[in-house]
């Protein structure tokens, strides 16, 4: 399916967004004979840090795609700050919502251009500051061409962790009001992971954040969690509450602890 999103004739332009998000009975599929979201309703308040969990393929990234209007809902509606997303200018959404995702989008260009992408007016000083906060500055400076090193399509010159830090620098520079973190499935070495989580912590500060995570340990700082299953929000609450419920979250958690035990035993 190819996204085909345009502005409604009466679309509103918002200078900033606060980040109050309401999903109201949202239904969505990429392919009509395979519904992904059946009836999803939830409310996120500005300033919240929400964790979204669920099995692989349950529709977590899809929810992120709908908020940013990569795709439009099939039924129900999504609103941001009380405006239906279909009536907000796409440009407003792009400017205020940052996704740091599994699929890091780096285009062919220099590292500096890639970081500045969302804010072409940023000064080089701001670019360097953002890279520094993202723990990317040091590895960038060690490249023979520094911030002018060409990266892009294949990006065999950068490791996965380095690419991710560049995308975090980009998001930091953008100063988004809403941040969506869609954690990479690929395992990273602990060092890289530490550098990245340190950078992400800075990014989250003071922003409405939705964290989609596979490793439940990444979710420890969330105010509350939502678990998605069979196209619906199956559970909502703090990690402790969901553990007590013995539902989806509990299952994911025990599954992961068992895998961890196996890994540890294997060492």
């Amino acid at each position, binding site marked *: 399916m190819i996204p085909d999103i345009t502005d409604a004739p009466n679309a509103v332009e918002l200078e900033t967004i606060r980040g109050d998000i309401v999903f109201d009975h949202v239904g969505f599929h990429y392919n009509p004979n395979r519904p992904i979201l059946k009836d999803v309703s939830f409310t996120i308040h500005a300033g919240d840090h929400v964790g979204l969990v669920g099995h692989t393929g349950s529709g977590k990234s899809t929810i992120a795609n709908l908020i940013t209007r990569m795709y439009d809902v099939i039924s129900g509606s999504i609103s941001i700050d009380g405006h239906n997303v279909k009536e907000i200018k796409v440009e407003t959404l792009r400017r205020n919502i940052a996704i740091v995702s599994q699929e890091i989008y780096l285009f062919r260009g220099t590292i500096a251009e890639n970081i500045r992408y969302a804010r072409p007016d940023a000064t*080089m000083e701001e670019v*360097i500051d953002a890279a520094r906060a993202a723990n990317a500055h*040091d*590895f960038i*400076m060690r*490249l023979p061409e*520094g*911030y002018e090193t060409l*990266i892009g399509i294949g990006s065999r*010159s950068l490791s996965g962790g380095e690419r991710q830090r560049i995308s975090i620098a980009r998001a930091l520079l953008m100063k988004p009001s809403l941040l969506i973190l869609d954690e990479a499935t690929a395992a990273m070495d602990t060092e890289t992971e530490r550098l990245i989580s340190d950078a992400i912590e800075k990014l989250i500060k003071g922003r409405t954040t939705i964290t989609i995570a596979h490793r439940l340990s990444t979710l420890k700082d969330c105010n509350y969690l939502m678990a998605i299953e069979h196209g619906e929000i199956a559970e909502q609450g703090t990690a402790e509450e969901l553990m007590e419920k013995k539902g989806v979250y509990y299952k994911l958690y025990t599954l992961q602890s068992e895998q961890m035990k196996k890994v540890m035993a294997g060492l």
Partner: protein
Amino acid sequence: MAETKVQNPAAENDEDAALFEKRESVMLTPENAVFSRSEGGLISLDLTGPDGEREHFERVVVLRSFPITDPDEYIAVREPETRKSRRGHEIGLIRHIREFDEATVALLNEELDRRYFTPEIHRILSVKDKLGYYYWDAETSAGKVSFVVNNISSNIRILEDERIFIFDIDGNCFQISDVTKLDRASYRKIEIYL
């Protein structure tokens, strides 16, 4: 290397160590930074902190943020990478070289030109691994050289355009513009690192 003891168990990697003992990079200006030529012909730095405290760096490494379009701006000044301290931290950034006096400008430029002079490797004579340090002998456009590389995964870089850069522990850089032009014996010596 099971016998190698690391003090901070979390800081087994140099990059990680850098994260743990980070120093705040500052803007370097003629007011807080005095560069001079050290005895060994290297660059020393005397830094005055915001509270008047002084720090002396016997040797610093200078790097360009934008070596192609802006070689005189945003110059990073770092502690060198040594065997003891592993990766050096950034001490500060010079916004524009020309803020400094003529002698300092000449000193910094000379060091930068040396640093960004990148000999081309024509033939690799040998690469020997000793406890994670790799001792290289090679024939380059600047003659026969020997150098030492640590942390292979981050010090051998393959860029988008296939050029290979190799950084040694002293901050020198060597390049292989087209690996397919290397002779077979040379290629065999490096292929496992690529």
